[in-house]
């Protein structure tokens, strides 16, 4: 195993990529993106053979790809919080659920919220808030929740923040389950709207059968979000987050408004989570509280940490592995949690900085290890 890691390190992929001329990098990036768009048609069976509940015998490759990309969006958003700003958020599923629920509550003609609007203003039975309006609503809801959660809790440091966010994730799910008159309770909400589009073959553009269209939509959103996240990383905001992570007090004395930047990280992460939830809810066309169990939060954090927090490529890899592998090996149903646990432990032991870490994060880990060793030697 360690030999494998060493030979991988010997490749120096990151350094080579950085040193490559600009045109090589742009062409390489273009090829990767083109390949990603082509993926649904790449039906190499051992790879794409995926049984799902929807499709028990054949392969539902495109749907799995869609889920992978949605989780990649989640991972990129959570990476802003954990990787950039260094805040451990264990309740990220809360924002994901809020995004899904906002499109369901406002976009579905059968949701209690829309029904009350219909009777209040005498609207038709099939009226609902247009999908295009649901997007800003979902983002605004999750962002507001992020600010409301962050404003009091971001003054806490480390473990306390993790505990409070952990509670938040559960609060959202339990509220959704128990607030029957608004959220439909445990039964959930059906008829969640899909994005508008031209009708093809008598079906609407985004439907349950042609999953590759959903995949492409999610992919476009993912690319936009990666682009925006990179902009943040390479600006004064990214520098401020890094400075806060390294030495919060020194950063404050240098004029970095720590609380403000942490709150922004939280709000940005929340809105990205909401957007991912919106995509998920819309594709399912059905939203129910049990889809947002707390273990999803842990899965999200695991994606970021295993992939390499702080590095966008890393968290993409993490999201891919932790979504694809469980789907591919569905037949080993009862062994999955076990395999998952073993994989986590192995990564933590062999590569605590993540599979594809950011260089800075890798060095921070080295430093902390040295400090721990020195401290141990002192005793």
């Amino acid at each position, binding site marked *: 195993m360690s030999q494998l890691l060493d030979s991988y390190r010997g490749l120096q992929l990151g350094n080579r990529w950085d040193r490559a001329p600009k045109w090589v990098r742009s062409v390489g990036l273009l090829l990767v993106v083109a390949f990603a768009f082509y993926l649904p048609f790449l039906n190499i069976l051992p790879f794409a053979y995926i049984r799902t509940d929807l499709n028990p015998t054949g392969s539902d490759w495109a749907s799995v790809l869609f889920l992978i990309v949605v989780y990649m969006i989640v991972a990129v958003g959570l990476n802003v919080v954990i990787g950039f700003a260094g805040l451990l958020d264990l309740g990220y599923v809360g924002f994901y659920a809020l995004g899904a629920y906002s499109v369901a509550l406002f976009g579905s003609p059968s949701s209690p919220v829309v029904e009350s609007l219909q009777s209040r203003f005498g609207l038709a039975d099939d009226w609902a808030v247009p999908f295009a309006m649901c997007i800003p609503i979902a983002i605004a809801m999750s962002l507001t929740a992020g600010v409301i959660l962050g404003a009091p809790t971001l003054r806490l440091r480390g473990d306390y923040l993790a505990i409070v966010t952990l509670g938040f994730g559960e609060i959202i799910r339990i509220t959704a389950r128990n607030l029957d008159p608004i959220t439909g309770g445990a039964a959930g909400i059906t008829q969640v709207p899909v994005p508008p589009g031209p009708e093809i073959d008598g079906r609407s553009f985004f439907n349950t059968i042609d999953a590759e269209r959903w995949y492409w939509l999610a992919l476009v959103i993912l690319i936009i979000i990666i682009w925006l996240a990179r902009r943040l990383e390479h600006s004064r905001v990214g520098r401020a987050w890094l400075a806060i992570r390294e030495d919060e007090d020194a950063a404050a004395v*240098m004029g970095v408004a720590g609380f403000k930047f942490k709150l922004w990280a939280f709000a940005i992460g929340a809105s990205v989570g909401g957007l991912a939830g919106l995509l998920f809810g819309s594709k399912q066309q059905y939203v129910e509280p049990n889809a947002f169990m707390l273990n999803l939060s842990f899965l999200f954090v695991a994606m970021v940490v295993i992939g390499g927090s702080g590095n966008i490529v890393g968290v993409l890899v993490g999201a891919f592995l932790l979504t694809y592998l469980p789907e591919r090996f569905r037949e080993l149903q009862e062994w999955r949690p076990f395999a998952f646990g073993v994989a986590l432990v192995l990564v933590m032991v062999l590569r605590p900085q993540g599979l594809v870490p950011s260089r800075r994060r890798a060095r*921070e880990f080295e430093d902390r290890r040295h400090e721990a060793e020195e401290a141990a030697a002192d005793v």
Partner: protein
Amino acid sequence: MSEQTTHDKGVEVLPDTSDHDAIMLEASGAKGDVLLEVDHVTLRFGGVVALDDVNFQIRRGEILGLIGPNGAGKTTCFNAMTGVYTPTEGTIRFKGQEISGQKSHKINHLGIARTFQNIRLFPEMSALENVMVGCDARHKTSVLGALFRAYRVRPSEEEMPQGGIRRSFAKVFGISRHTLEERAGRRRSMELLRFVGIADRAEELARNLPYGYQRRLEIARALATEPELICLDEPAAGFNPAEKEDLMGLIRRIRDLGHTVLLIEHDMKLVLGVTDRIVVLEFGQKIAEGSPEQVARDPKVIAAYLGEPDDAA
């Protein structure tokens, strides 16, 4: 960060080749005005009185030394001035505005910067990035501005890109304020690194820099926030005589840029050589204040430093 134990002492520091005009501080008041006023400040931690009715003023354009034996309350005084502690009694006013009890970053925005006795750089950032964090304190780009870069500014002729398409694009749409600030910050940071004499290792990580470079980098980072008052907390700790000589020159040049300097230092030779005025603390109390000559002759100061004949420690 833990105290460095291996000091590379043979490090040559580059001479100052910076363009002083580019990093000059714009004067916002007349020389000799009271810039900062420590008004009867007392600071207690439980039963310990760290500062006891300390009272002094810093005038614009001077180099004020703050000296005293170990544990006299010098660094505590700094911490009270930069928002780390809030005085139990008394107030601190900067340019007539009360700053005691304000948040550290607010105080920095008002115009006070500091260095730390035990160096506290951002170790995983390059020297240049460390200074750029300081520069960011004066930048106006918001988080949304950095995200969408929608705030466009018509660039001056020097800022115009040279390439054909880029140039026409910039002419029509301007350049985002974020980009302009980022460039300006980078330029200014490089000038500051030249000013303190460590520009040759700008791209290196702060933690890999030799000790003397780290001390100077802290000064550059503090200067980057364009402070009217810069507080140096034992900048010469661990320096050899030649480096101390260099540092004296640097402190004078900082003053010449238009900054007011408050200097905590143990080394009497350095303090007497560079300061205009000195405040002496002992056990949290001010025991003397005056010109270097007066202070050096003051029997109380001599007693504090050398001990009274009968209880020489």
